[in-house]
């Protein structure tokens, strides 16, 4: 009896291992072809029924009309739900054949062997025609291409023209330094109704969306977050200078709301659209909310740090192909990716206002650069995109950036000293990076 029990337990363990192991390997859904057609599962995130969702469906229709041999099944959801589901699907071997990945997550999937290397496929296009390919390649330690650009985000300094005009402050220029930024911010900060409380702040320094807050500042001051050799580099005198500048702007000059005030005023992303701050660092997509807030805005390049660096960052949202998908499906997926990168679809996608077109020809058209709605000159985004660095891409991006954010936010809220915070951020984030072992 005990002998048999032990046997059963062992068998059960083996069965379990086998199931879990095979689920990862097999995948992409069953049918290779349905009625002679390749059936392609396409996943993307968008607000359901919103303009982007509608445009994506329209483009899928165009694609299937042009490629009668391919049938597309759409799996979409809002950003949050999309990734929640995707992670379970990956574990169960049911992930879509091709899906839209947030640029910062491409390495998280490829580092765990979930994505197909697209380097070979990309030999039939000219990489110089598109933005972002270099940044995606840079994310991989061996320079492989695990995703293809779908839309790009880069950073610029947004300013509210009305507040500047009213305060009689000269609008920002491409030559601004961080000193200029702070000086202008101080002039713009006002108590308009005389109740002793600030009503308009010159600048938004803090945001939980660090791409628009401490990260570019650390880089502008000459520091870095994740060095090119893959080691965490946040603990440096340059980072200290950047955070000191931020704390001066927020806590001493009070020209920018500190983290607590930011929350009291509403979340950081409504400050600019509601006219509480005169300037913000923003990615391209922030134009949408600002326009909804009816702000007449302009954009200029980010200010220069002490050594002339602007610290520009770019995020390249990408189409990625499931490694488990069959050859015909992967080929069909590549067709879709190429279709989406084409001039027609990129121009249509641009009209949703979600992202900077990755097709250079489209991005150089007046329709993009000088659209006639604020900001009327969008070239600063293109300039930033061409010189921008990646956002410290890594297979453990979500986890290590969370570790750093926790400590940096503590320093910006004055709960901890800057030196201590940077030291802890360095230690914790490095531990996260060290824990990761790349898959075979």
């Amino acid at each position, binding site marked *: 009896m005990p002998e048999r029990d032990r046997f059963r337990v062992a068998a059960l363990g083996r069965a379990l291992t086998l199931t879990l192991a095979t689920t990862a390997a097999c995948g992409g859904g069953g049918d290779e072809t349905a009625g002679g057609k390749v059936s392609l599962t396409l996943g993307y995130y968008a607000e359901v029924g919103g303009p982007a969702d509608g445009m994506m469906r329209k483009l899928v229709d165009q694609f299937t009309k042009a490629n009668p041999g391919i049938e597309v099944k759409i799996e979409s959801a809002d950003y949050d739900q999309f990734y929640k589901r995707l992670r379970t699907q990956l574990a169960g071997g049911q992930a879509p054949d091709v899906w839209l990945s947030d640029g910062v997550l491409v390495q998280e999937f490829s580092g765990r062997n979930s994505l197909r290397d697209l380097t070979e496929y990309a030999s039939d296009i000219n990489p110089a025609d598109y933005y972002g390919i270099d940044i995606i390649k840079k994310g991989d330690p061996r320079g492989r291409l695990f995703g293809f650009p779908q839309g790009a985000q880069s950073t610029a300094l947004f300013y509210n023209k009305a507040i500047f005009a009213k305060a009689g402050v000269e609008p920002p220029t491409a030559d601004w330094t961080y000193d200029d930024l702070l000086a202008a911010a101080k002039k713009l900060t006002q108590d308009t109704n005389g109740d002793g409380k600030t009503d308009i702040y010159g600048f938004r320094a803090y945001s939980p969306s660090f791409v628009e807050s401490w990260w570019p500042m650390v880089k502008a001051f000459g520091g870095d977050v994740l060095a090119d050799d893959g080691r965490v580099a946040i603990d440096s005198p340059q980072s200290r200078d950047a955070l000191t500048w931020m704390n001066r702007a927020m806590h001493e000059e009070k020209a920018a709301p500190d983290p607590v005030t930011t*929350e009291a005023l509403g979340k950081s992303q409504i400050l600019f659209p509601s006219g509480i701050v005169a300037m913000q660092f923003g990615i391209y997509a922030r134009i949408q909310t600002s326009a909804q807030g009816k702000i007449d805005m302009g954009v200029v390049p980010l200010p220069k740090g002490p050594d002339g660096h602007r610290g520009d960052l770019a995020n390249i949202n990408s189409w990625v192909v499931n490694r488990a998908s069959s050859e015909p499906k992967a080929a069909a997926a590549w067709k879709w990716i190429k279709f989406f990168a084409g001039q027609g679809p990129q121009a249509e996608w641009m009209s949703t206002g979600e992202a900077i077109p990755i097709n250079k020809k489209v991005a150089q058209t007046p329709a993009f650069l000088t659209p006639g709605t604020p900001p009327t000159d969008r070239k600063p985004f293109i300039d930033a995109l061409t010189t921008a660095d990646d956002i410290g891409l890594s297979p453990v991006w979500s986890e290590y950036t969370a570790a750093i954010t926790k400590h940096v936010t503590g320093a910006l809220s004055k709960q901890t000293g800057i030196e201590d915070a940077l030291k802890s951020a360095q230690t914790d984030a490095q531990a996260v990076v060290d824990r990761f072992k790349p898959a075979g």
Partner: protein
Amino acid sequence: MTKVAERLWASLFASPYLAHLVLLTAWPVLALSYLSFTDYDTVSSPNWIGLDNYTRLLKDENFWNSLLNTGLFALMYVPAQTILALVLAVGLNQRLRFMPLLRGAYFVPVVSSWVVIAYVADAVFNPRTGSANTVLGWFGVDPQNWLESPALVIPTLALVAVWKGVGYMMVLFLAGLQSIPKELYEAAEVDGAGPVRRFWNITVPAVSGTTFLVLVLSTISVLQAFEQVYVMAGGGPGDASEVTVLYMYRQGFEYFQMGYAAAVAWVLFGITLVLTLVQLWLQRKWVHYA
């Protein structure tokens, strides 16, 4: 009917649950136990790493922080919920005009999903627009940041959880109250016992069985409060509301460390089990079954 036949019948009655145990309990539990000893990342196949996940757990400050947050949440939520539900049940257990309508009001938050509650609670606790700060202003109290304040996020979550859940627990108590013979109250009243004494001496002991059920259910639900914390606070600000089940979710689903998440799950399960056993043991001292 023979004993064997009776047992067969009983097993037949219980068969849905036997299937439940095999498919929905045993299988996931076995899988989880196994995974907790591996480096499973949800994508590649798992490798056996022995007790590594558990030793890492002991040294993981974030994990201990999450336990602390969970404990705080439970301490604020469980007693408040239980007491308020009982008081409300007594208040609503009367023949008043429009009673069904009034009772209905208490059920509106109950039937709302957490998604709805998150947006409705924002109308109250949004630091800028919410009515909570307006009300505080009437009393000269400074506005608060509620869900965005490290000190207030857990109390606010507990408050919203009580607001949402109290109507349901109240109905459980209402059902318990109906079993109390009216004669008991009448006799006490004749003896000159006031409403407060009647409540303490008759109502409270009589519904102690329900109280126990409510306590156990609230404890378990607060230890598993994933949906609420996820949609309302997301663990923030910082890690001030990162409760254990959320921490586990992050590890497993956002950081690809399902093996580690499974270990966290086991510890959380152990804690829940111990708490429930303690409550079971304590109930013998204070629960009176009629």
